[in-house]
C-alpha cells in the first residue's frame, strides 16, 4: 500500500524499512509503525478470529481497546498489535484461527450463536451431570485466544524502578502537558506518563488550526519539545498506567525502545499529588455487525492517515456523533478518500465551520442518521444508514465505515483512586463528583473539547497540584480559574446508545463476543445490575479491560430500566488497567543472598553450594550425598565446618539482663563468667522459636548466638517484647561481622594448640567454657567448647576479615591430624546421632519447649521478669494430646524412611522429622514427633512413606541420644 509520505504529522520514517514475517511471508513495514499498522499497510484486513463465534476481526482502534488485533508476536501470545511497535525480524501470527484468518475452518461457529446464549455453559452443560466432564474439555479447548507452548521461555530483560515525584501527571496529551508545565514552573519535580510513544494526545495528528496560525499538531509538538527541555519534568513515553493506590502510589510499566537496556520496566511512583489527564477514547456505535473488518473508529481512521500515512480505505461512509468525526471526514477527503456520506447522530450542536467544510466539498451530510447494519461476508462492502427512529433507510457501497457514537472518558485511574463517579447528563460521561485528596483532573475526560479550554484546564490542575505540594499558589490559581472561565465549557455529548437494529449480531463487547441480545437475555434472567450482567455475559472481562463495553454497557442497562440519570452506574475498575506481562511485575532476577567469608575456598575445595534461607552454604564436600567420609572423619580425626551463618549479637547496658530474662526461658542471672549458657526462646504460646548460647563478656555486656534462621528477627523480637518497659539497653547484630568455625573431632585440640599459645587443655578450657585468646598472636578469637556434633569441639568466632586467614591456618595446621571440611549434611547426621535438635526440623509452629524435651531449660522462679512464654509453659506443662519428640530405630535396617513420612495407626499420629543411616551405629536412626501415648520407649511405630503402596515401615521408639549417651566424647 502506498503511503502518504509528505504529511507533516507523520510518526513513521519512510526512509527506514523494517522486515517481518506473517503467514510465512516476508512483509515490510516502516520504522515507527506498530505491528497493526504495518500489517494494515501490507493489505491485511482480518487480524484474527473472535473468541466464541470465530468472526473475522480487524483494525478498529489504535490504542488496544479490544482484543481484535491480539496476535502472537515472537512466540508471545495475546500481544496487542496496536500498541506494539514493529521491530526488525518480528514473527507475527494470527490467533484463534483454524487455517488462516481469512478462511477459518471454525467460521461456522458464527451461525451457532442461537446455541450459545449468555452464560450457556453455567446453565446447560451440567444436566445430566455426566456431560460436564466431556463439555469441560471442549470448553477448555475453545477458551482463550492465544496458545502458548509448554516449553516457552519468556524472552527479554525486565527491570523495576521506584521514582518519587512531587506531581505525577497521567496522560501526556495537551492537558497533561500543560499541567506538568504549570507544576514544573512552581519548582516541583514532575513525572509525566504517556501510553503512546510520543506526547501530544489527540492534538498530535490534527491539522485543525489552534487560532494562532499553527495547526494543533505543530503547536503541541513545539510544546512537547519545550517540556522535554524542562529539567524538572521526567517524561516516560510508552508507559501505560496500570494502577493507582492509596497515598498517591501510581504503578505503570514502560516499554523499552531500541536504545533502552530493558524490554519492559515496572514503575512504582510515589507522588505527593496526581493529575489525571487521560482524555477520552471513543464510545463504540452499536449496530448490526459493528465489528466487521472495515468498520473503525474516527481516531483510528484519522490517525492511520495522519500518523502512519495510510489512507484507511477507498470509499467511506461516516456515522459519527462528535465534531472530531466531521473534522476527520474533511481531512481524509482532502487526503484523497472518497467520502460518500457523513451521518451525524446529533440533530444539532455541530461546529458550523465544519458543516460549511462539508458543503464546500459536496459531501452529503445527514443529521439524525446512523449506521444500522454493516454488510459483507468477511470484510465490509455495504452500509445501511437509517434515521434514529429507523423509519428511513439508505444503502451505500463502501469499504470503510467510520463509526463512533461519541466520546468515553478514560476514568480508570480515577476509579482506582476511589473517586466516586456519577452520570453527568449533559456530556453523558461518568465524571468524578468528588475527588480524593491530592488528586486533580484535567482535560477531555471532563467533557471539554475546545483546544484552549483543554490547555487551560491542564494549567489549573497543575497549579492545584502545586498547591497540594505546599506551594503558595493563590494568585496563580485565581489567574488560571479566570482564564478557564472565559473559554468555552464542555460540549454536549451524543445521547444515542443503540442504532435501530433488528439482528442478533450487535456487539457490545468484542473480546467476549457479547451481543446486545446477550445483555437482554441476562436482563430477562433477572440480572438487573450492570455488575451482574458483566459477570453473567463476561462483557468487559477480556484483554481490552472494558475498553469497548465500559461506557455502553451501563448506559444500555440504564436505558432498559428507563431512567438513565438515576440508574447509570459504571462497573468497578480494577488494576491492572492494561494487560501486563507477569515478567514485568517480576522485574529482574535479584537473587539476593549472602555468602560467608570462606565461600570461595569451600567451593574450591569441592563444596556443593546450596541456597539455604538467605545464605549460600556448603552442603556436601563430595559426590557421595550420604557424606560417609566427612562424617567418619569428624568421629575419627577432626573436621572443619563453616558456621558463619549463626546469628550473633551483642546486648549491653544497665537493663541488658532484664532483656535477656524477658526472652530466654532460663534464668539468665545464673550465667557465670567464662561459661556458656545454653537456652531457648519461646513465643507467647510456649512454642520454641530459637535456641542458642549466651556468654557474659563483662558486667551488663552479653554476647549470644541464635539459629541461622532467627538471625534477622532477633533484634526486632527483643525490642518488641520490651517495648513497654523503657529499659536501657542496646543491641547490635554481629551476624555478618563475625565468622564462625566449628572445629570438631578427637584431634581438634591438637590442631588448635598448634596455632595458639593459649592453654587449650581440658583443665584450662573445659567443656561449656568460654575463652578469648589470640591465634598466632594476631587473630582475636572468641571460643566456646560446645558439642553440637557430639565430639570434642571448639567453636571459634573471629572478625569476618580474619575468617579466611584462620580457615587457611587451621586447614594447614590440621593436615597431619587428618583434618577435612565437612558440610551441612554431615553436620545434620552427626547432630542427629546426638539427638541435638534444629528448630524447624524437629519442631514446628505448635511444638512447645516441653514437647522437644527441653522443658528443663525453663526457670519457673523468675516470674517477676514476665518471661515470654512462661504463662503458656506453665499451662501446657502437663497438657495431654501433644506431639512429643522421640528417637526411633528401624525394624528393617535396610530401609531409611524419607523425612516427613507420616506415622499412622488408623489415623495420622505424627511424622518423621529426620532419619538417616548412622555409620557410627551401623543402622538407620531418626527423630519423630509423635502423639504422646506413642512416645513411650519400645512403642512400635508404623510409618507410611509417600508412594509406599501400602507397604508400611516399622520402627521402635528408643532412648536418645543414639551416640555416646554419656557425653564422654564432648568432654575429652
Amino acid at each position, binding site marked *: 500500500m502506498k503511503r502518504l509520505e509528505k504529511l507533516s504529522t507523520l510518526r513513521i520514517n519512510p526512509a527506514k524499512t523494517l522486515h517481518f514475517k506473517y503467514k510465512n511471508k516476508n512483509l515490510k513495514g516502516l520504522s515507527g509503525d506498530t505491528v497493526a499498522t504495518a500489517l494494515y499497510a501490507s493489505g491485511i484486513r482480518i487480524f484474527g478470529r473472535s473468541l466464541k463465534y470465530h468472526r473475522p476481526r480487524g483494525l478498529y482502534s489504535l490504542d488496544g481497546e479490544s482484543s481484535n488485533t491480539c496476535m502472537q508476536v515472537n512466540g508471545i501470545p495475546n500481544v496487542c498489535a496496536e500498541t506494539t511497535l514493529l521491530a526488525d525480524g518480528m514473527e507475527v501470527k494470527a490467533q484463534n484461527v483454524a487455517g488462516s484468518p481469512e478462511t477459518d475452518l471454525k467460521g461456522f461457529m458464527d451461525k451457532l450463536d442461537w446455541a450459545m446464549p449468555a452464560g450457556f455453559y453455567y446453565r446447560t452443560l451440567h444436566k445430566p451431570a455426566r456431560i460436564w466432564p466431556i463439555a469441560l474439555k471442549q470448553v477448555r479447548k475453545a477458551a482463550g485466544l492465544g496458545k502458548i507452548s509448554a516449553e516457552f521461555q519468556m524472552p527479554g530483560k525486565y527491570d523495576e524502578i521506584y521514582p518519587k515525584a512531587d506531581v505525577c501527571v497521567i496522560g501526556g496529551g495537551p492537558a497533561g502537558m500543560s499541567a506538568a508545565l504549570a507544576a514544573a514552573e512552581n519548582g516541583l519535580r514532575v513525572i509525566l506518563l504517556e501510553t503512546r510513544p510520543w506526547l501530544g494526545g489527540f492534538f498530535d495528528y490534527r491539522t485543525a488550526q489552534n487560532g494562532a496560525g499553527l495547526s494543533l499538531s505543530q503547536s503541541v509538538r513545539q510544546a512537547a519539545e519545550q517540556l522535554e527541555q524542562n529539567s524538572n519534568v521526567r517524561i516516560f513515553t510508552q508507559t501505560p498506567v496500570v494502577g493507582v493506590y492509596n497515598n498517591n502510589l501510581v504503578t505503570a510499566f514502560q516499554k523499552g525502545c531500541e536504545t533502552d537496556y530493558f524490554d519492559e520496566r515496572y514503575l512504582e511512583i510515589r507522588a505527593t499529588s496526581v493529575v489525571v489527564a487521560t482524555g477520552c477514547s471513543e464510545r463504540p456505535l452499536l449496530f448490526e455487525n459493528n465489528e466487521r473488518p472495515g468498520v473503525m473508529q474516527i481516531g483510528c481512521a484519522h490517525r492511520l492517515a495522519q500518523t502512519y500515512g495510510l489512507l484507511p480505505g477507498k470509499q467511506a461512509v461516516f456515522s459519527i456523533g462528535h465534531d472530531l468525526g466531521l473534522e476527520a471526514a474533511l481531512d481524509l477527503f482532502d487526503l484523497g478518500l472518497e467520502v460518500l456520506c457523513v451521518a451525524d447522530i446529533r440533530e444539532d450542536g455541530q461546529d458550523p465551520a465544519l458543516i460549511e467544510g462539508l458543503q464546500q466539498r459536496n459531501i452529503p451530510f445527514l443529521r439524525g442518521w446512523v449506521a444500522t447494519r454493516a454488510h459483507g461476508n468477511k470484510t465490509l462492502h455495504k452500509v445501511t444508514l437509517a434515521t434514529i427512529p429507523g423509519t428511513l433507510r439508505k444503502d451505500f457501497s463502501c469499504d470503510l465505515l467510520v463509526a463512533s457514537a461519541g466520546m468515553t472518558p478514560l476514568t480508570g485511574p480515577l476509579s482506582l483512586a476511589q473517586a466516586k463517579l456519577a452520570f453527568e447528563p449533559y456530556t453523558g460521561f461518568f465524571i468524578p463528583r468528588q475527588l480524593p485528596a491530592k488528586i486533580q483532573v484535567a482535560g477531555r475526560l471532563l467533557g471539554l473539547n475546545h483546544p484552549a479550554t483543554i490547555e487551560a484546564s491542564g494549567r489549573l490542575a497543575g497549579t492545584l497540584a502545586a498547591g497540594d505540594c505546599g506551594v503558595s499558589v493563590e494568585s496563580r490559581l485565581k489567574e488560571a480559574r479566570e482564564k478557564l472561565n472565559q473559554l468555552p465549557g464542555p460540549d454536549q455529548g451524543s445521547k444515542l446508545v443503540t442504532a435501530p437494529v433488528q439482528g442478533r449480531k450487535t456487539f457490545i463487547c468484542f473480546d467476549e463476543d457479547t451481543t446486545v441480545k446477550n445483555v437482554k437475555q441476562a436482563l430477562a434472567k433477572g440480572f438487573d445490575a450492570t455488575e451482574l450482567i458483566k459477570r453473567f455475559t463476561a462483557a468487559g472481562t477480556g484483554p481490552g479491560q472494558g475498553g469497548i463495553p465500559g461506557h455502553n454497557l451501563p448506559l444500555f442497562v440504564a436505558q432498559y430500566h428507563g431512567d438513565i440519570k438515576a440508574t447509570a452506574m459504571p462497573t468497578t475498575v480494577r488494576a491492572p488497567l492494561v494487560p501486563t506481562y507477569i515478567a514485568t511485575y517480576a522485574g529482574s532476577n535479584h537473587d539476593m543472598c549472602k555468602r560467608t567469608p570462606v565461600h570461595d575456598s569451600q567451593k574450591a575445595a569441592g563444596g556443593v553450594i546450596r541456597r539455604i534461607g538467605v545464605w549460600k552454604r556448603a552442603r556436601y564436600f563430595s559426590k557421595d550425598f550420604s557424606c560417609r567420609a566427612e562424617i567418619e572423619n569428624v568421629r575419627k580425626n577432626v573436621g572443619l565446618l563453616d558456621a558463619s551463618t549463626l546469628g550473633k549479637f551483642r546486648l549491653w547496658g544497665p537493663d541488658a539482663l532484664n532483656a535477656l530474662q524477658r526472652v530466654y526461658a532460663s534464668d539468665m542471672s545464673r550465667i557465670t563468667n567464662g561459661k556458656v549458657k545454653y537456652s531457648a526462646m519461646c513465643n507467647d504460646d510456649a512454642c520454641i522459636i530459637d535456641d542458642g548460647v549466651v556468654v557474659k563478656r563483662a558486667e551488663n555486656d552479653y554476647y549470644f548466638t541464635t539459629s541461622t534462621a532467627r538471625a534477622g528477627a532477633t533484634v*526486632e523480637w527483643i525490642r518488641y517484647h520490651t517495648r513497654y518497659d523503657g529499659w536501657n539497653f542496646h543491641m547490635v547484630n554481629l551476624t555478618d561481622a563475625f565468622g564462625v568455625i566449628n572445629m570438631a573431632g578427637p584431634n581438634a585440640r591438637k590442631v588448635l594448640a598448634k596455632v595458639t599459645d593459649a592453654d587449650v587443655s581440658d583443665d584450662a578450657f573445659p567443656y561449656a567454657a568460654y575463652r578469648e585468646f589470640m591465634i598466632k598472636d594476631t587473630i582475636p578469637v572468641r571460643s566456646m567448647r560446645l558439642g553440637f556434633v557430639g565430639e570434642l569441639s571448639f567453636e571459634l568466632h573471629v572478625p569476618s576479615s580474619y575468617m579466611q586467614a584462620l580457615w587457611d591456618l587451621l586447614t594447614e595446621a590440621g593436615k597431619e591430624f587428618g583434618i577435612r571440611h565437612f558440610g551441612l549434611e554431615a553436620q545434620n547426621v552427626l547432630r542427629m546421632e546426638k539427638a541435638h535438635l534444629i528448630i524447624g526440623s524437629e519442631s514446628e509452629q505448635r511444638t512447645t519447649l516441653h514437647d522437644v524435651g527441653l522443658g528443663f531449660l525453663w526457670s519457673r522462679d523468675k516470674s517477676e521478669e514476665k518471661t515470654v512464654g512462661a504463662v503458656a509453659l506453665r499451662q501446657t506443662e502437663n497438657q495431654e494430646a501433644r506431639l512429643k519428640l522421640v528417637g526411633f530405630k528401624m525394624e528393617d535396617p535396610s530401609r531409611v524412611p524419607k523425612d516427613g513420612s507420616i506415622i499412622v495407626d488408623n489415623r495420622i499420629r505424627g511424622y518423621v522429622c529426620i532419619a538417616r543411616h548412622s555409620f557410627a551405629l551401623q543402622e538407620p536412626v531418626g527423630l519423630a514427633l509423635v502423639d504422646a501415648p506413642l512416645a513411650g520407649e519400645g512403642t512400635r511405630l508404623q510409618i507410611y512413606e509417600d508412594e509406599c503402596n501400602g507397604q508400611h515401615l516399622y520402627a521402635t521408639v528408643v532412648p536418645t541420644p543414639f551416640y555416646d549417651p554419656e557425653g564422654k566424647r564432648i568432654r575429652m
Partner: protein
Amino acid sequence: MALTLTCPVCGKRNGYEFRYGGEEKGPRPDEAGITPRSWCEYVHMNQCVAGIQKEWWCHKDGCGVWFTTHRDTTCNLEVDKPEAQS
C-alpha cells in the same frame, strides 16, 4: 506498597519497610492467677476495629524502632490527628 507509615525517627516511609506488631493492647498482664482463657484473650484476641485503630509497627528495614501509630482500617491510611477524628 500503597501504605505509608511515619517512623518517629526516620519520617514517612513506604510500608514495605515496616513490620506489623498488632493492635495496641497495653503491657503484659500480671501473671499471677491468670487463667488460660484470659491469657489467650490477651495474646490472640483482637478488636478488629473498622475505623481508626492504634497499633504497633517496627521500622525493620530502617532504624529498627517499635512505635505506635493510628491507622484507619477502612481505607488503610495513617491518621495524623486521631483525637480530632475519633
